């Protein structure tokens, strides 16, 4: 069979796409929810207090800048103990957990993370009094940042 140029291009594109399909199990929203429940303990996560900043569209999934800020005085009982970042569509949901202390001054941190595909990124804050707050952002990813 003789392929014309257009058919050949379509075939190679299909092959390339097939080759990129993940072979490993992906984190699912369910696994992510379980992870959040384990982190939150008895408390039920509420919205508010915590702000997750992430780009709406990330061209390169290898380095996506993310920031979290929690509204807290960081002294006495009004303190943030830790903030966990999870991602729903990565091979593993865990991304990082930040631990703050009274010396931190404010509960804010910035880092760069990998995103395999377009997905929700979730930040969960645990306060010293046991309450838990959550924020979520969808990040559209043009080029995935895992595997290869």
């Amino acid at each position, binding site marked *: 069979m003789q392929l014309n140029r257009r058919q050949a291009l379509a075939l190679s594109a299909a092959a390339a796409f097939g080759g990129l399909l993940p072979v490993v199990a992906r984190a699912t929203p369910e696994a992510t929810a379980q992870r959040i429940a384990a982190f939150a303990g008895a408390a039920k996560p509420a919205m508010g207090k915590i702000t997750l900043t992430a780009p709406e569209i990330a061209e390169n999934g*290898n380095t996506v800048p993310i920031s979290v800020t929690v509204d807290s005085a960081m002294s006495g009982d009004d303190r943030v103990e830790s903030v966990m970042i999870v991602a729903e569509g990565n091979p*593993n949901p865990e991304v990082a957990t*930040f631990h*703050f*202390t009274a010396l931190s*001054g404010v509960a804010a941190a910035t880092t*760069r*993370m990998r995103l395999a595909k377009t997905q929700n990124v979730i930040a969960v804050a645990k306060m010293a009094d046991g309450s838990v707050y959550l924020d979520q952002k969808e990040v559209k990813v043009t080029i995935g940042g895992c*595997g290869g």
Partner: protein
Amino acid sequence: MATPKPRIKVPKTAKVGEVIAIKTLISHDMESGQRKDKEGKLIPRKIINKFSCTFNGQPVFACDIEPAISANPYFEFNARLSESGSLKFTWVDDDGSIYADEHQIEVA
């Protein structure tokens, strides 16, 4: 790979109770354990799994790191100090290596 080299940005002086910004970066591949080599074999995971910052021995900020953190891990956080002293930064590698750096800060 060359020995990971930490780079840290901390102000030299601060006022008592002022919230200062600290920026850290360390060169590291952060091999996720998901990638494959040319023969299709998985490249084993090798990342920095813990970062911490202490001030005169007291914890300021710490982070548990998973493979989803980008290569050359970057962290930006804050500190509120009430005395002069030294900020110590520590990164722990999967292979047990520890990379550390220290910065003096004048607080008045």
